[in-house]
């Protein structure tokens, strides 16, 4: 399978989710491994999702059907009423220092980018376990938009890209379902 060379500038212009992975698993030359993640409501303090490293199926390979690599989150309709959340991810760095790590995450619903987030990690130390918690206000959606998202499970999608020195090394794709749990 051929991969297009995707730059941060190219990613920033996208108005719809990708339809396939823009890089291969083997492009993760720095052996960066994402593990545990957690989502909490910053207003009530409640933890909504807490996935530990041991709970994850990390045995993904290039031979697998790409659709099984798609992450799926069923959040339920209440999630759309939250205002401020904290999303924490944990990641491990391999034996090599990472010179300049950057992340771009974009969320879409029906041809519209509803949230775009960028973060420059910069240098990452070799053989370390690091965390990033992003605390942010969720996009303000109209009642109509919320209803449309609830009625269209898995049509809200996101792409998460990690670049080292502007070269794409990791691409994660996810779909969301806001129908009642």
């Amino acid at each position, binding site marked *: 399978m051929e991969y297009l060379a995707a730059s941060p500038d190219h990613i920033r212009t996208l108005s719809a989710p990708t339809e396939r992975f823009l890089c291969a698993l083997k492009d993760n030359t720095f052996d960066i491994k994402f593990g545990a993640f957690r989502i909490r409501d*910053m207003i009530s*303090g409640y933890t909504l999702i807490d996935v530990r490293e041991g709970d994850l199926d990390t045995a993904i390979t290039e031979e697998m059907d790409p659709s099984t690599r798609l992450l799926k989150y069923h959040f339920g309709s209440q999630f759309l009423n939250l205002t*401020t959340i*904290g999303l924490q991810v944990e990641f491990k*760095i391999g034996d090599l220092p990472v010179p300049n790590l950057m992340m771009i995450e974009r969320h879409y619903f029906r041809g519209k980018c509803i949230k775009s987030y960028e*973060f420059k*990690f*910069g*240098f*990452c*130390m070799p053989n*370390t*376990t*690091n*965390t*990033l*918690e*992003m*605390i*942010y*206000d969720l996009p303000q959606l109209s009642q109509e938009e919320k209803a449309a998202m609830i009625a269209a499970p898995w049509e809200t999608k996101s792409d998460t890209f990690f670049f080292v020195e502007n070269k794409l090394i990791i691409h994660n794709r996810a779909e969301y379902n806001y129908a009642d749990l």
Partner: protein
Amino acid sequence: MGLLKIIKKTKAKEKELRLLILGLDNAGKTTILKKFLGEDTSEIAPTLGFQISTLEHEGCKLNVWDVGGQTTIRSYWRNYFEQTDAVVWVVDSGDKLRLEDCRNELQKLLTQEKLAGATLLVFCNKQDIAGALKPGEIREVLELDKIAAEGRHWSIMACSAWSGEGLLEGIDWVVNDVKSRIFMME
């Protein structure tokens, strides 16, 4: 949670504030950050890397970097100095044996060119422990009066990450000081 209130103060023309929390290992850097962010602090493992918290709330941005204090990690600290607005230097006020080590590391940090304009808060943590040194004593041992002579914006305050006492006041001071500096430059 006090944090969301404080971050509103950072609203300074979309300027992103960058805080760096440093200090020797076991000083309580991560506990301070977690307590401040309303997280459980009952089990804190040594940070073998960094823990970043980014806050974007009502148009304000604050990035807090907590980098591990183990000797092996200290050699990497310099990678995180760029564009730092303030350094929060955390001291274990009960660890008298390592105060000299603490002073040397801090003095070394303050000679770094990239941190020349950064505000400094020395946080005298673990004030809840019996026999903990008071800020006045720590000020002397760490030779902080040298810093005052150099014209840096700095302060020394007592806190307890365990009880949460002093944390809000400290971070509030840091954010206000950085804001006042930015304001003066404009």
